[in-house]
């Protein structure tokens, strides 16, 4: 059963969470029902016909007849909130037809998907042409790598001290050339380097140096082991197809504990979601990275603190982290994994693939301290936090200044807390954005 916080964490944005809290009056729900598989209800909207809202608890997955573009919409969230509050207020009888139809269509779709996966990936229409296209893309990218390397050398010959905003603006031209050469990942890193010019020259130099490292890797691509070649390809912004990953990789079955879920607006109308998992038996960490366009939802919701039985297939990498999950079933409320080798994990991952942008980290027994900015202090060491003030105050209120276990993302400079536990055996007491 989901807690209030867990339900609110599923909200696509703060406004939806807010709106859902305002829909909890029982009188607005002439019909409410639930069984082991699903929760459903009819919510009296401003029109004359009520909205039909339903949640498949296996996901949880949501569906509602309201016109909202948000996913899940406020009605679905409100339904789960009410259930978290008082399960007895829901009628126990058999679900109405509009619920059973949807549930069986979902089951059917899942079956079809399984069958497709079992049949293996479809062979490309013309394997030779595909291979040729691929070779052409590599050629273009390798040329762009040489171009970038020369550009970097020119830059360092003149010195970073002379850089001014006008000079940095010309970096955009180089970034555009990289996009044209189908290496958007490199362009992205160049733009990030441009963004930190003037902050600290050391950081600019470090970012440019990492680009040089990418160029060097590209130049001796064929000499690299397959896993590192795969990391190089990811770095270029040339991702593997999900179907390919599923077809080629070996599934890793485990009890996967959801450490944290981060949802960020990447561009207008594009939402990126990162789900961080920890395998209870394998000790492995995993990232499920998804995107949703135009407020459309994600197929499956993930709730921090819950363990799922799932088989993950990892993307090829020297430091496997990103994975795809085909189907998962909720197991129980997890206890936070123990162990204190967090920074060893980070070091090993960096050694295997220095281009990993975000590392999952559990920062145990941390006390929040704020003066100029927020920090989390544990064992005599402080991490600078990247945290919204409202989230920070909510976390401070829940924690009361006592040590908390924080799970979040480490980008090499700052730590973004996403989930907090007061003790490892309890459900999380705070999640980012659910305050």
């Amino acid at each position, binding site marked *: 059963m989901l807690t209030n*916080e867990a339900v609110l964490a599923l909200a696509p944005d703060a406004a939806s969470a*807010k709106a859902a*809290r*305002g829909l*909890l*009056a029982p*009188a*607005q729900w002439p019909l409410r029902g639930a069984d082991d598989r699903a929760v459903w209800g009819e919510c009296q*909207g*401003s*029109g004359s016909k009520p909205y039909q809202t339903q949640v498949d608890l296996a996901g949880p997955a949501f569906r509602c007849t309201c016109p909202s573009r948000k996913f899940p919409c406020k009605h679905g969230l409100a339904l789960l*909130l009410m259930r978290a*509050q008082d399960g007895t207020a829901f009628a126990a009888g058999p679900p109405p037809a509009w619920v059973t139809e949807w549930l069986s269509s979902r089951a059917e779709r899942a079956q079809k998907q399984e069958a497709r996966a079992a049949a293996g990936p479809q062979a490309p229409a013309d394997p030779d042409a595909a291979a040729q296209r691929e070779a052409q893309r590599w050629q273009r990218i390798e040329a762009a790598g040489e171009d970038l390397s020369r550009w*970097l*050398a*020119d*830059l*360092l*010959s*003149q*010195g970073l*001290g002379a850089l001014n905003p006008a000079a940095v603006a010309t970096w955009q031209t180089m970034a555009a050339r990289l996009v044209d050469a189908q290496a958007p990942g490199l362009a992205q890193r160049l733009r990030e380097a441009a963004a930190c010019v003037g902050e600290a*020259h*050391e950081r600019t*130099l*470090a*970012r*440019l*140096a*990492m680009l*040089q*490292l990418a160029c*060097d890797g590209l130049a001796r691509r064929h000499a690299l082991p397959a896993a590192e070649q795969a990391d190089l390809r990811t770095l270029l912004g040339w991702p593997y197809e999900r179907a390919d990953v599923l077809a080629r990789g070996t599934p890793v079955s485990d009890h996967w504990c959801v450490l944290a879920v981060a949802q960020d607006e990447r561009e207008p109308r594009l939402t990126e979601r990162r789900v961080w998992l920890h395998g209870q038996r394998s000790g492995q960490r995993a990232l499920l990275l998804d995107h949703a366009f135009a407020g459309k939802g994600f197929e499956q919701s993930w709730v921090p603190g819950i363990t799922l039985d799932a088989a993950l297939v990892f993307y090829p990498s020297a430091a496997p982290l990103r994975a795809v999950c085909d189907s998962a079933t909720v197991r129980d409320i997890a206890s936070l994994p123990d162990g204190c080798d967090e*920074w060893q994990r*980070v*070091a090993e991952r*960096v*050694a295997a693939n*220095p281009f990993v942008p975000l590392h999952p980290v559990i920062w145990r027994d941390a*006390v929040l*301290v*704020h003066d100029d900015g927020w920090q989390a*202090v544990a064992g*005599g*060491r*402080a*991490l*600078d936090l990247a945290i919204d003030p*409202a989230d920070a*105050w*909510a976390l*401070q*209120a*829940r924690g*009361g*200044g*006592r040590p908390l276990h924080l799970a979040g993302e*480490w980008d*090499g400079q700052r730590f973004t807390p996403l989930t907090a536990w007061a003790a490892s055996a309890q459900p999380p007491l705070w999640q980012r954005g659910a*305050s």
Partner: protein
Amino acid sequence: MTAWSALMPAALVGIDRHAGAWPPRGPWPEDVVALATQAAGPTPHATGLLRAAAVLAVVQQAAAFGRPFVATLPPHAGDETLPAAAPEPLQAWLLREGPVRTQQELLAVVARNGQRLPAAWLPAALELGRRHAALRAPVAAVLGARGAWLAAQRDDWRWAVGTDAPDLEQRWPDGTLEQRADALRRLRELAPAAARERLAAALPELPANERADLLAALAVGLSGDDEALLEQALADRSRDVRQAAAALLLHLPASAFVGRAIARLQPLLSQERALLSRPWVIEPPADVGPLDPPRPKHEPLGDRAWWLYQAARQVPLAWWARHTALQPAELLAWAAAGDWAEALHRAWRDVLFMAPEPAWCSAFVRHWPAGAGRDDSARVLALLPLAEREAHWQHAVASEGLSDALLAQLDAGCPPPQHLSLSLSQALHAALLQRLAARPLSQDWLLRDALLPLAGLLHPAVLPALHALPRGDDHSPSAGELLHSVQRIAAARATLYPRTPS
């Protein structure tokens, strides 16, 4: 000196101008030096510099685990003495977005139950108090140890800190104005003379607004012993302070201040000789001399009326009834028929607010004088004990139904966190149904504005009935939206009274 210092000179001025020692070598561990040397190559060049920097960047990333923290950790929150209220989601909504009246009701209910707010709500509650000064005391009362600890960490929440400190000695010198006034009122309850002396000692050093506010705290336990200090305050530089002193002296009928005021007025009030009755007449002096306070520029009253207004507002209302043997309602009618109606009505109204008298309140509400400002009727009602106020409304709803005037009075006349009695609420609900039946909500603009406040006022036992308000043929989204909001308030308030029989 950082790990990067060995690379920065060449990187900043350009490798062509400044190669420095090559290969670059910083204060690095030996194997890092070896890697960087290998990456940089034998001769100075830009790409070699970048490669050495890449070694350093990767090593640094791999080695990171925060900075040393040597300061003492801040203290954590103290142990709670009160149990936490259950975190009811509708109440969480209320605290963030509900109407202020119902927020105040929520805070009062939590305090009455001897509970504190759940930890998760504390930031929202402190933000609420930051925005609404009226909610600060009720918020501070239910913060618990955790909330007080949290509030102390932010300048704009610090108002909430210290109100729990029992020690008056601490709060008198250091507290905010609100806290000092509160401390003074509490001390007045225990030791009126000590409180007066403390105030008298502090007055000369305070700014005018603080002098006025703290002086007003003497209302608690006011007695003839306070007269000397109040007389002194009548000569204060600030009009507000003089006003506050006069308001308090009105409560002391034996004071010299009241005596002087009566002596000024009494000779002007006389009885005419007539055939059957001996009507009272009042006539201000023909030459009133220099006016104090001066007559404002756009004041509708003339010089003599202004003089009378000022003289009459220093006389307790009880004197008029005693002196003339007329009832308050009769006096209002008498004044209305005379030449000085506006001056007298305004003076009486002012005195009523400074020193309320229930009989006069009722008279004012029933026979509201034309010149005394219509908007104040609800405020006058609020001066009455709730039972008398309700009797008035009960009478009004029985005779006129749910009138616009009644709707306008209810909200201001029932100060939060109180709500209306069950019998009045039932009568109002019945009248509401009648009004809805007579006119659809879409055409009844006044009711649309008043419906939501009404949902915040009714007795908890009537709340379930609000879920079934008839919508009639009105399918407009705005009407649906309004009924939703009404239901939401009703549902949120119902959670505050879980054991109320419905």
